[in-house]
């Protein structure tokens, strides 16, 4: 019987011995750690991919630049179901936003997330290229250049939205959590340096084919031209404003990089000679060049310089690499052709981002605030770009309906205060609304910089540098392509050029593409064009007021200021 003592005592002893440190050494399940993962360049290259992947962050880049911030401009009204739909954007539309608006300012964090990915790559690449014996050194150089482009790209986005922001040129560790703003000039110098270092190692678009999703030499040059143009405009238009201190007019440099793109022969204005392009939207006759750019078939077209690649991948709304822009912009309701009394609305997209009457008038050269135009008033619909940009009552949308098949369905305008709809990113609901799931996964690429933008940048830079004839040539290329897209005779070539002509041409060519507000700010025309406008959704009583010194930039999100423990300070107008 005494033996019975020994059993538990023995077991206990055994257990104590067995309980070494190994017992506590548990590794994460189904996840690699930093130490085990970064073994070779192939692994590191996946982090480069992640730096691109952030571009598709579903509701950040889609929402903000194309809707949220764009709606501050005179050409766009938020729309949606009613005046309470997406209140944050409604507030921006009315210029009543504040640092407290919570969700709209996520773009701050997501841009920095993209930047972190580039820094995660750049901080490790030297060690990997030294230790990975099989590595292709040219490819490593190209990737480094791509990461520098993306780092500049994300910073540029932050800089146009918020002004001077803290530069993140390395991985931010907790000791750097309270970092103040850099000056706008410092941010611009940083981006310009990154891009200039990147350009030699990037490949031309034709060399990349079919990997158009990668950054090309042209993309870096175009972004550099854009950045130089912004710096020059700020410098010229805001003398003495401390936010822009140190910025310089660098028009010839801007022109140089724009012309490097133009002269590279890699790009063209699609349809400038009146070509028609096959599209499922019009399989018989084809569509004009300008229209074709904004169809699914026009993804990565010869005019494309830098597009965010979107695919309908069926991964569901939190994960998809699809874009929401398509859903946002497509008309909310339409009718079945078999329903002539229009008694039963069918639901499509969400009807955000509506063109205003100011936008409509501009297409007819009838916006009375545009002074000094060399174009004469016409019917807006004569400009072939009008129908591609703006839908109006009576317009139809191509739908492949389960019961009626593929037909053009009349759009409903009954809930649209402007009686217009934005059509540039329109798709058939079957195309973005993942046919089987309830997920919106717009397959259409976001056209960030297209060749026409670069030609217009060249025109502007040339004009500002004093080369009017060159500016006129470039403007007329844009007008010709527009004209040839519908062969209506409009817009006609200009024989003389004013600055207002350049402003006007950008407004029409890039209509509803989200650049108007930022352009107005750098030209210091925001007060002129935005103050005094009314919003169709709110009737006549509400007049939007643009305050100079404040509304040029969006405020830093309130909680970022708190998290920085006061290191970040709002610009004066927002204090």
């Amino acid at each position, binding site marked *: 019987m005494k033996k019975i003592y020994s059993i538990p005592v023995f077991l206990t002893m055994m257990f104590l011995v067995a309980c070494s440190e190994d017992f*506590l050494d548990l590794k994460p399940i189904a*996840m690699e750690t930093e130490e085990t993962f970064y073994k070779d360049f192939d692994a590191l290259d996946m982090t480069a991919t992640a730096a691109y992947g952030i571009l598709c962050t579903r509701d950040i880049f889609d929402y903000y630049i194309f809707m949220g911030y764009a709606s501050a401009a005179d050409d766009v009204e938020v729309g949606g179901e009613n005046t309470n739909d997406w209140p944050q954007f409604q507030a921006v539309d009315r210029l009543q936003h504040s640092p407290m608006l919570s969700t709209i300012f996520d773009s701050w964090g997501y841009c920095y997330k993209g930047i972190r990915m580039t820094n995660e790559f750049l901080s490790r690449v030297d060690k990997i290229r030294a230790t990975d014996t099989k590595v292709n050194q040219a490819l490593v150089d190209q990737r480094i250049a791509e990461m520098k482009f993306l780092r500049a790209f994300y910073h540029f986005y932050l800089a146009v939205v918020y002004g001077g922001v803290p530069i993140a040129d390395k991985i931010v560790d*907790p000791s750097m959590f309270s970092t103040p703003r850099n000056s706008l000039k410092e941010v611009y110098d940083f981006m310009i340096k990154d891009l200039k270092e990147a350009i030699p190692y990037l490949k031309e678009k034709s060399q990349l084919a079919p990997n158009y999703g990668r950054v090309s030499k042209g993309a870096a040059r175009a972004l550099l031209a854009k950045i130089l143009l912004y710096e020059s405009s700020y410098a010229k238009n805001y003398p003495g404003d401390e936010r822009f201190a140190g910025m310089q007019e660098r028009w010839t440099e801007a022109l140089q990089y724009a012309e490097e793109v133009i002269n590279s022969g890699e790009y063209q204005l699609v349809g400038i000679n009146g070509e028609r392009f096959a599209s499922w939207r019009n399989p018989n006759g084809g569509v004009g060049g300008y229209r074709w750019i904004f169809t699914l078939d026009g993804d990565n077209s010869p005019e494309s310089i830098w597009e965010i690649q979107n695919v309908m991948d069926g991964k569901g709304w939190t994960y998809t690499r699809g874009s929401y822009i398509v859903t946002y912009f497509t008309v909310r309701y339409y009718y079945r052709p078999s329903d002539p009394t229009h008694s039963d609305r069918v639901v499509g997209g969400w009807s955000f981002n509506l063109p205003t009457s100011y936008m409509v008038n501009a297409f007819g050269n009838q916006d009375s605030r545009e002074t000094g135009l060399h174009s004469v008033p016409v019917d807006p619909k004569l400009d072939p770009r009008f129908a591609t940009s703006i839908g109006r009552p009576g317009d139809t949308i191509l739908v492949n309906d389960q019961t009626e098949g593929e037909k053009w369905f009349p759009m409903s305008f009954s809930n649209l205060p402007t009686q217009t709809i934005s059509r540039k990113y329109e798709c058939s609901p079957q195309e973005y609304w993942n046919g089987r799931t*309830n997920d919106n996964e717009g397959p259409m690429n976001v056209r960030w910089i297209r060749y026409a933008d670069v030609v217009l940048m060249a025109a502007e830079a040339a004009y500002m540098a004093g080369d009017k004839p060159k500016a006129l040539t470039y403007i007329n290329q844009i007008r010709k392509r527009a004209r040839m897209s519908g062969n209506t005779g409009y817009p006609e070539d200009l024989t003389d050029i004013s600055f207002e002509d350049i402003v006007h041409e950008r407004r029409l060519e890039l209509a509803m593409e989200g650049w108007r507000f930022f352009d107005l700010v750098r030209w210091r025309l925001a007060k002129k064009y935005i103050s005094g406008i009314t919003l169709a959704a709110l009737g006549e009583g509400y007049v939007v007021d643009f305050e100079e010194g404040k509304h040029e930039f969006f405020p830093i999100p309130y909680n970022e200021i708190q998290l920085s423990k006061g290191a970040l300070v709002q610009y004066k107008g927002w204090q």
Partner: protein
Amino acid sequence: MKISTVQAFLRNAVRGGAVIALLLIGFSHPAYAQRVLKGTVVDENNLPLPGVNISVKGTTRGTVTDLEGNFSLSVQDESEVLVISFVGYSPVEIPVLNQSQLKVTLKEEVRKLDEVVVIGYGVQKKADLTGAVATVASEDLVKVPASSIDKALQGRAAGVFAQSVTGAPGSNVNIMIRGITSINGTNPMWVVDGVPADPKTINPNDIESMSVLKDASSAAIYGANGGNGVVIVSTKKGKSGRTTATLNVYTGWQEAAKYINVANGPEFATMYKEYEALLRRRRFTFPNPDTVATYNYQDLIFRTAPMQSYDLGISGGTDKSTYYFGVGYLTQEGILRNSSYDKLTVRMNLDQKLTGWFRVGENMSFGRQIYHGYQEWQLLNEYHTPILAALNYHPFVPPYDTTGNWSFTPLGNTGNPVASVELLHHKSQNNSGKLSVFAVLEPIKGLSYENKITGTASFGITDDFYPIYFITPSNRNPNSKVYKQSDWYYDWLWQHRVMYNVTLAGVHNISAMAGFEAGYAKGEYMNATRWDLINESREMRYFNASQNDTLLSQLPNGAGNESSGYSYYGRLGYDYKGIFLAQANFRRDASSKFGPRKRFGNFPSFSLGFKFSELSIVKEKVPFMSFGKLRYGWGKVGNNAIPDYVYFSTIGVLDVYSYSFDNTTTEALGAAPNKLANLSVAWEGEVTQNLGLDLGFFGNKLYLTAELFKRYNEGMLMEVQAPGYAGWIVRSSYQEGGVANPIANVGNISNKGIEISADWKDKLGKLSYSVNFNFTYVNTKAGEIRPDTIFRGSAKGINGYLTRTINGQPIGEYYGFITQGLFKPEDADTINNVIVITNQPYTIDNSGNKIYAQPKAKPGDFRFKDVNGDGRITDADMVPMGNPNPKYLFGMNINLEYGWFDLSVFLQGVAGNKIFNATKFYMFNMDGAFNWSADYVKNHYRENIYDRAGNLLFPENHAGKYPRLDPRNENNNFSTISDFYMEDGAYLRLKNIQLGITIPQVWTSRIGIERFRFYVSASNLLTFTRYSGYDPEVGSSDLLVRGLDKAAYPQARIYTVGLNVNF
């Protein structure tokens, strides 16, 4: 030896089974008679006592006295002993000897404090306790028809706050013992029969005793797990003696206690017309508002819901072996349509003495829970809860259109609440079994050794089915979909414990305990989705019924996590003659959650007691004081309630990092660090001090306890919220694989408070009564946190974060602007044909113009307070508006017994907290996208409104107390966070009232029933509160966002009738 152990188990199991069978078919035990012993039982006044229990010790034989107090009983030999017991009287034992006629006098029980309290790894007499331990009577736990035992703790013990996250059946419960101990969660550790367990799987009827260890000196023996306090539950064990069975059954009806008054059809239509007139619309949607129909959507989603509970417990045993079997089944439907909860519990406790110094036993439990309907996150989310939708949906729209489909309001995008209730097909179930086997050796007197091995295995299944539906343009499903998740969990725990008690020289009582334990746990899950089912019938809601294999979203997911740890612990107790008491505990824990350098945590504690009532001078001078004890405790406890693997820097290979480069739909996989790791993450340390005073008066009829406590949590584990600049923003943790921010020991939190409980128990003639009262004051402050402010909480449409947790301030306090009434016409001037409020703060710009603080304000808008007086309304003017955590808790329980009848009344309440009533935003909306509050319709400020032809449509109402209807939202009246939303959250609730009738035993014993009680009961019958929402008990799943009401699922009012039968 081993074989006989197994045999003993089998024997007990067989015997238990046989007993159940016998009971069920109605047989009673035949007794083997030799001679008959007769007797009478009387009380001290020589009055006969009917219904007294008489049993023969160590056997199953027994009887009860009749109305005259007489009994007769068969006895077998002279060595037998009778046990005579009656509720409220001290039991006596009388040897049979050769007597044939007995007269027994029972003395009324003086309340004794030799009640034994279960503490960590042991038991202690209540009188000798030196830590802060509250006990909850097991009969109180079953009074309120609660779906789980943690819910039943509400109001029952001082210092314990318990609140359901939602009012849904089976909801999770938030428990805080003495305030917010840590922002990583406050729920205490639950220990059932010596091993950690999930309180939801415990049947309240199986509980023998429950103690709550509140301070570190009592909880530190649980080290890392004791930081939030420990609730120790002992389940019922068999006793040697006759087999007894208890049957508890009730059935109940639940209903919503309150509806919120929203506008009816005509009121809505009138308001909508006003809205359109303000926008100067040409045509009105409702030209004749009075003719508009009304549908009450609260009626359409709420219902009167049944609930039932059945419970059977059987116990008994012999000198050598005892057993207890318990089976319980609860089925409860929710007052919200299409929600329900079912729970089945089974428990078997066996104990077998093998020799005089060696016994073995087991505790086995199984719990099965099934949930139907809305999940917690949906009920707390304004985009998903049908309760808010019922308040918001337009009352003129019928729930179904003419073709029988769900309607969709033409004036907005609020989903049809009836549709969302009806299309819901969510079911989840959890099955969990736990088995402990133990052996106890007592080789010499006072020394015992226990070895216990416990294993748990559980699995859960989630079933979701989405039919084809359309609710709104952004909430629709074109194809049927099935989603399933399976999860598994298992753990083991091995405990060893040695205890030794000895008394030296008759006055020095020494006890010692030392233990070692090690454990391991692992969980895994798998889930998948498939679309496009053959049809929507129930049998087709399986993956194999999917018609389409091409959709990528059908990818399965699965992962897991595991943890391990081991601990050493010990306790040394000393007391001198039971007057001076001292105790010291120590525990050393090791856990896999921490990196190699930080694995161990040490948790010491001690406590002292002085029982001054034992001093002769006190006995002489204060004779009415029957008990008095002063005690003090100090201790350090820990917390490791953080996710596994935080010290690893992990790589996410995530869909959200992938990208398509090649102009096709092929995506390259992206991977990157998805978490900022912290190698130096270490244990939290909570230092607690407790000073307690226990007093008993008048033979302990009155018993008072008062405690002062102070707790300081140092090095609290917190997510260090990285700024956006660091690039770790995560939209949702499931999307990007968990928490991205580093977790570090950077927080401090402090709690101070007072607890008082009083207990009075006495008799007035035949009426016996008792009153318990408990009161708690607790003040919780964030000592220091990093960053200095944590922002949390949002509500759709209201701009900014709602709560802040700031150094030195309460946790999750609401911050916002102060409203100072409405601007009046006399505050305004007309400047350039525009009405401007000139009676308000302003600044002067460079050109000398006045810039008003609220530039677009009009009469009828809120005046926001310019707190810092700088002439502008900016974020700097946001001030604390209220603490959502109650400072005061109280509970009161009154029990009366008179003859056949018993009555209990239980009151519970909280005070000192504020609620952010976010539902007001939706019901005071500015554009008719939702329905309006009926109050707002009647009571809003209005100027004269004319139609386009100049006819007066709506007359002015300058007396309106709510802001004007403003489609343009010019002054952000409602989209600004302000004290307009804050309401007092104090309430006093009649939690339960119960009236019972017990049929005298003398009658029922003839049919073999020892006790037969029938009762009617009502829960949540009355609530006294000034809160205007559904229910002041606004639950939350986020500690930093408490008291945020987005139309909380209210606690149901429950009426029940029930039976308690003992055989």
